[in-house]
Structure formats: C-alpha cells, structure tokens
C-alpha cells in the first residue's frame, strides 16, 4: 500500500480510480478489496512475528550485550554463565557453512545443470526428479542418522579417528548432504525459468551446448540459483537436530576457538544451534539471557551470510540486463 503524499500521486490515483470505475461500470469491487485486505493481513502477521522475535531476543539479551559485548563473542564455553561465550560455536558454524558452500553448492548446481540441460527427459529422469523432491522433505534428524552411520562410524578414519568421528568434517559433510536436494531443486527451477528461445537462438547461430549453457543459460539463471543457495545456507547454519546426532559438544570444549586452525576440523566441535538448545535448558536467568544473546549472534551471522549472497545476486542481476 502506498502512502499518498504528493498532489501528483493523488491526481494519478484519482485518474486511475476514474478509469477503473468506468471499466467496472461503477460496481464496488468488494471481493477485490477483501482479498487485498487478506493479503495485507498475511504480510502483517509475518512481519509482526519476526518483529516480536527480534524484540524479545534483543531485550532478553540486552544485559549480556551491554555488559559483556565483544567478550561474549570471543569467550569459550564455560560452567559460569558470566564467563561463557560462543566463539567455539561460531567456529563450528563457520566451517559448517564453508563445507556447505564448497560441497553442496557446486555439486547441487552441477547436478541441476545436468538434469535440465543434458539429460534426456524420460521415465528415469522423472524418477530421479521425484526422489530429489522427496529427499528435500525428509526430516533433518534422518540426515543426522545418515551422517552418524556414514561419516561418524564408517568413514571414521577419514573424518577424525581421535575424536571417534564426531568432528567438524562429519558435521559439515552431513549438512552439505542435507541441503543438497534443496540446492538441486532451486537450481533446477531457475534453469527451467530460462526462456527456451534463448537456448534455441544460441544453437541457431551454431553455439555448442557448452557455449549455450556457459554464456547464456547460466548467467540468466544465476540470480535464481543464488536465491536457492541463500535459503540452503541459512537452513544449514540453523540446523540443530543432525548435529546432536553427529555429536556436537555443548558442555565444554578445551580448544576449537581458532577459526583458522585446520587440525580442529578433525577434533570435537561445537556449533551455534546445539549450543543455543543446550543453554536454553540450563537453570537460571543468566543462562536465559546468554541463550538470547547467542540467538542474536546466530541471527547476525545468518543475516551477514544472506547479505553477502544477495549482493552477489544483485550483481548478477544487473549484469543480466
């Protein structure tokens, strides 16, 4: 709904209304108005829910934010709520995000390109398509069990024998697999939205399939693909259930507070969502505000990741024009 301010706006609206009245022969558009109100209500509801969440989390964590500030972000897990911080959770979540970006994105986009641009459509591809769609709806705990069986137990020598496989590598791979179907589906949709005329024109001037995909289809689909990957990344950063099964540590961790310590990838780890879940079950008001502060930190991280991806998408979009 636009707010009417300038006389020009008012004149425009008046003119539009007059034309509309003539076309609808003066009948009042009650159904249309009700529908519009309904849409507005739906929008208002989602905004209010989000607003309440942010306000609630911010007020609850205000004590921690003002008293501890950066110290909360750089402190390690601890028994005393006044000393506990989230740095190990951030390191874990950072690397999980890195695994998702490095594994799920290229694999997912590649699979989607193959399915849409190269594969012969037929019963078999339809079956694959259907399974991928079903996989996207599988509850995340199930992926946790998958991660436990494959990465924690079976591939333990690779994922970290000293920590019984309960490592960042296992967690990162599990979440990468978790979001893979989402990446494939959204990328597929983005590729399908590319007008077929674009491809045909390419082939018409003698371009190979690779050239068509590389120079025409992909750039056109890039913003859509990126939107999907944004959703996938946000989902991966916020998942707690699979991490509980893979074995994220929530009580205490001696190390794991160095973002660039690569040996820590094969050691026990913490992650933001499980840390939040654990703190929420601790007794006392101090843990409660710590929980809210941790939620705030996770929100900021997800927001930053999304902003980066949206900026990237906008770049692609402006290029497309």
């Amino acid at each position, binding site marked *: 709904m636009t707010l009417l301010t300038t006389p020009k706006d008012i004149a425009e609206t008046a003119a539009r209304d007059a034309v509309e009245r003539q076309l609808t022969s003066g009948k009042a558009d009650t159904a249309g108005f009700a529908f519009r109100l309904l849409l507005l209500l739906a929008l208002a509801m989602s905004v209010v829910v989000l607003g309440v969440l942010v306000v609630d989390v911010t007020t609850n964590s205000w004590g921690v934010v003002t008293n501890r500030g950066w110290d909360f972000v750089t402190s390690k897990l601890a028994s005393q709520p006044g000393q506990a911080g989230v740095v190990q959770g951030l390191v874990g979540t950072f690397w999980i995000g890195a695994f998702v970006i490095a594994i799920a994105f290229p694999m997912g986009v590649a699979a989607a390109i193959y399915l849409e641009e190269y594969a012969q459509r037929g019963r078999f591809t339809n079956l694959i398509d259907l399974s991928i769609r079903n996989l996207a709806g599988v509850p995340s705990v199930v992926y946790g069990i998958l991660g436990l069986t494959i990465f924690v137990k079976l591939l333990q020598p690779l994922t970290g024998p000293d920590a019984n496989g309960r490592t960042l590598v296992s967690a990162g791979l599990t979440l990468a697999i978790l979001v893979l179907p989402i990446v494939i589906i959204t990328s597929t949709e983005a590729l399908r939205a590319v007008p077929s005329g674009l491809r045909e024109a390419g082939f018409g001037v003698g371009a190979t399939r690779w050239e068509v995909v590389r120079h025409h289809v992909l750039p056109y689909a890039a913003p859509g693909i990126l939107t999907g990957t944004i959703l996938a990344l946000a989902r991966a950063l916020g998942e707690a259930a699979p991490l509980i099964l893979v074995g994220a540590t929530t009580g205490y961790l001696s190390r794991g507070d160095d973002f660039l310590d690569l040996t820590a990838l094969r050691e026990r780890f913490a992650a933001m969502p499980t840390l939040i879940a*654990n703190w929420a079950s601790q*007794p006392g008001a101090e843990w409660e505000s710590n929980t809210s502060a941790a939620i705030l930190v996770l929100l900021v991280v997800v927001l930053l990741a999304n902003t980066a991806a949206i900026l990237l998408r906008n770049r692609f979009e402006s290029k497309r024009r």
Partner: protein
Amino acid sequence: MKHTTRRTTWLLAMLAAVSLIAAACGDDDGDAGANGNGQTSDLTGSVVVSGSSTVEPISVAVAEKFNADNPDVDVPVDGPGTGDGFELFCAGETAINDASSKVKDEQIAACEENGVEFIELWIGNDGLSIMTNEANEEMSCVSLADIYALIGPESQGFDNWSDAQDLADELGSETTFPDAPLAITGPGEESGTFSSFVEIVIEEFNEDRGADATTRPDYQSSGDDNVIIQGIQGSDTSLGWVGFAFAREAEGVKILEVDGGDGCVEPTDETVADGSYPIARPLFIYVNAAMADENPALAAFVDFYLNGGVESVGEVGYVPLADEDLEATRALWEGRTTGAQ
C-alpha cells in the same frame, strides 16, 4: 570489457572454492612444539566426558580449572543423559561417564560385553525437590507415602488431590489432601531425575503392593527442567519434581518439605549431605579403567577431579560429600578398584 569482468568473477569463485577444498584437506601435522609455556604442564591428549546433564556442570567446572594448568589436554564435556552416556561409555567412546544414578545391571552387562571395566567414583549428592505452586497454601509437607499416592503407578487417573486420600491413608499417611485439581509435571523416563525418583520413592512401596516400578503414565513430562518449572507455575495446585539445584533457582514455586518417617525436613545443603532429607541422590563419575592406565591425561584429570575439582560440586549448586565419603572415593581411585560398589 563485459566479458573480462565476468571472467574475473568466475576465476574468483573458482579460486575461493579451490582454496576452501585445499583448506579442508590441508595437512594435519598438528601444533607440536606450540607448548612453550614453562608454567603449565606439557601433558597432551584428550579426555572425553559425557553422561548425565545433572553432573555436566560439575565436570565442566572441573575441566575449566584443569585446562588452566594443562592447556594442551582436550577435555570435551557433554550431557546427553546418564543412560545415553553409558551407551557411549560402554562402547569405549568416552573416558568418563557422568551419572546421576548408580549404574544399572543392563549397563554393566553392556560394558562387560565390550570389555569395558569401570571405576565408580562418588563425587557428590543431589536432592530431589518436590514442588507445588507458591499459591498452594494447603500443602507444605508430604510423606513418601503421599508422594507415592499422588504420583505412583496406582494413581493413574487421579485429577484431584483428594482422589489420592484413600490410597495415602492406606499407606499410613496422616496428611489431609485438599479438594483441588491435581496437575503434575515432571521429568520424562529418559531422565536420570526420573529414575532417581522411582528408585528413591516408588520402590519403597511398589513391590509390596504388586505395582510396577514406575510412575503414573498420565502426567506432563519434559526432559527440560525449565519446562517442568513452567508447568508447576502454570496451575495453582500443581505438583512436580526436579533436581535440588534446579529448584533452588526456580521462582514462583514452593518447595515442599518431605517426611521420611522422622518428621518434615526441608531440602538444604546440610539436610541433603547428612542424609536427613529423605529424597537425595548420589552423583557419580564412572572412569574407564583401561584408559586410566594408558592415558596419563585421564589419570591426571581424575586426580584433579577428586582433589581440587570436587570443590566445584558445591560451587555449581550441588551438595558436597562428607569428608569420610570423599576419602573413601579417593581410596577407590588410588586402588583403581573396578566394578559397581
């Protein structure tokens, strides 16, 4: 022009991906030689602790203090629950299992099957607190028989306090229950607090009465102590139970005194430690005996736990052991005495 910028973006993206993969597969030669600090020990290795969420805060506090002197020992601590912890412990995944109730026969069997021998070390106490809403003025003290009559297996279907009157009278209680709705909230079956409750209260009565060793099934259960407290706050004449340390932090609830036969006793540090409060429970750590021999970091950690470390029991809200009990625990550890005591 347009083409080149697009190409650089591609190159950048590829570079980022490659560097990430390289980073992930990077060499693992560790941080050998990083320990140049003369003050601290050069003990290395790891001590994995899991088990009861009740004991977890104690182990975390001990691990913190231990790490201050031994920075290169990795001590991850977790609290999935006593039972889940024993599964990991008996599979040889963890070196220490925190427990808020004694090891069960089937857990001993599971450990034996995998050849895991353990040393049972009693490190402190926790009281169970029976609570009602602070608006409930009629109740201030309950006997064990009352608790059995209200929450035991025979109380299924009681939705008013007075429903339990006959059963309580039969068991020899002299309490008069109010005519008020009965809303019960407590821990779920997976919780150590649940099994302690069954062992301490229910098992006093159930065998004589031919009932199962469990609670009534029809109560609001949660694994999260905060949710239980909220449930108790939610109704004026509610009833529920959680661990002592948790109840102390709770607001809007009234902790009931408990009569174990010698009069009503309020749960306090003193009454739990000296055993006069009838529904208290012991807290243990179980140490993998074979690992204790092989892993000097584990031995050092347990040494520290039983000396400086046990002070944390009181600091995090539980009840420390009496001196002679602590001595007995230390003796078990020094002698590496395995098996349930």
